[in-house]
């Protein structure tokens, strides 16, 4: 993927990332040479306008709907605009654009449908409790999905066209379900999931999304989702334009 590709889209869900969004958009455009879509999830700090000035296409939610919903908006945009692959990148500068290229490669080559960038295979540090929780989640998800995954809550991912089409019609919108439950959904749909090491930086701006109690609650909720998934009704498939 050395030459710029016009049929690949970078999807950047963004909520109040005015400090970092411009530099991320520029870096992705410079290093990957692909189109960038910023899904402004109800920002009140002008993130959308800054992103547009930096050269991104922008879709704006009228109010905050969460990362999962923002991603699905991105998937719908990608499908409607005819892109053949997409990569999800954080707008806060945590994800390294050169790693995005490595995530996209298997998808572009047709060897995978969903590539998950893993922080841990490249030495990313998190707090002890959070690390234990993430490990436990990863073990549970790996068992369900049948693929060894070390970083199931990673939001650094690449998607093939078939994956985009499925996710455009149904995608979990609850907080963090967009990462964990999406893997279960992809696996149930027979999509080929692989993991790839990805470079991640500590945050350049913004604040971490949740405190300790909230994290514990979300962890519990995700475990409930994973445990009940085999007998749960599939997410409803919705019609799209």
């Amino acid at each position: 993927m050395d030459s710029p590709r016009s049929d690949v889209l970078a999807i950047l869900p963004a909520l109040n990332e005015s400090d970092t969004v411009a530099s991320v958009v520029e870096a992705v455009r410079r290093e990957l040479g692909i189109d960038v879509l910023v899904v402004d999830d109800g920002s009140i700090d002008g993130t959308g306008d800054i992103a547009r000035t930096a050269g991104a296409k922008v879709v704006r939610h009228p109010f905050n709907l969460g990362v999962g919903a923002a991603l699905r908006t991105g998937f719908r945009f990608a499908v409607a605009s005819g892109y053949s692959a997409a990569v999800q990148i954080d707008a806060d500068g945590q994800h390294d654009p050169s790693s995005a290229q490595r995530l996209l490669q298997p998808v572009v080559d047709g060897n995978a449908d969903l590539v998950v960038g893993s922080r841990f295979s490249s030495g990313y540090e998190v707090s002890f409790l959070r690390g234990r929780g993430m490990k436990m989640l990863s073990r549970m998800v790996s068992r369900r999905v049948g693929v060894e995954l070390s970083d199931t809550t990673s939001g650094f991912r690449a998607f093939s066209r078939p994956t985009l089409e499925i996710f455009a019609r149904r995608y979990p919108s609850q907080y963090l379900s967009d990462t964990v439950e999406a893997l279960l959904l992809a696996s149930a749909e027979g999509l080929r999931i692989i993991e790839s090491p990805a470079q991640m930086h500590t945050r350049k701006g913004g604040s971490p999304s949740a405190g300790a109690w909230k994290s514990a609650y979300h962890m519990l909720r995700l475990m409930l989702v994973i445990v009940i998934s085999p007998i749960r009704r599939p997410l409803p498939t919705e019609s799209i334009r």
Partner: protein
Amino acid sequence: MKVSLVLIAMALVMLVVILEALRRRRLSEGFALLWISVGVGALILAFARPLIDWLSRSIGISYGPTLVFAGSTVVLFIISLNLTIHITRLESRVEKLAQELALHEALSDDGSEPTDGEV
């Protein structure tokens, strides 16, 4: 004894109803977790009559079940307050959505610049 069996059965039925609603995706995981903890709480109370009696005596209530009633009133109050907060948020979102749509239609009808979502 019979009473606690009935209570246990009620708590179990409650848990089954919650899990079934979750299974059918009529209930999101977040709310399900809330109701499951209420159900488990009810189950524990059904098993733990001596605990209730001890607890109520220690805070000066002579008839144990009164404490259970008081406790469940507080829990139900918190949950319904939570629900009205959610409804309030949904109301303001619907209002905003309708306004955005109305403005979008108006501004793209009169031949002005396409607004590209920035209304």
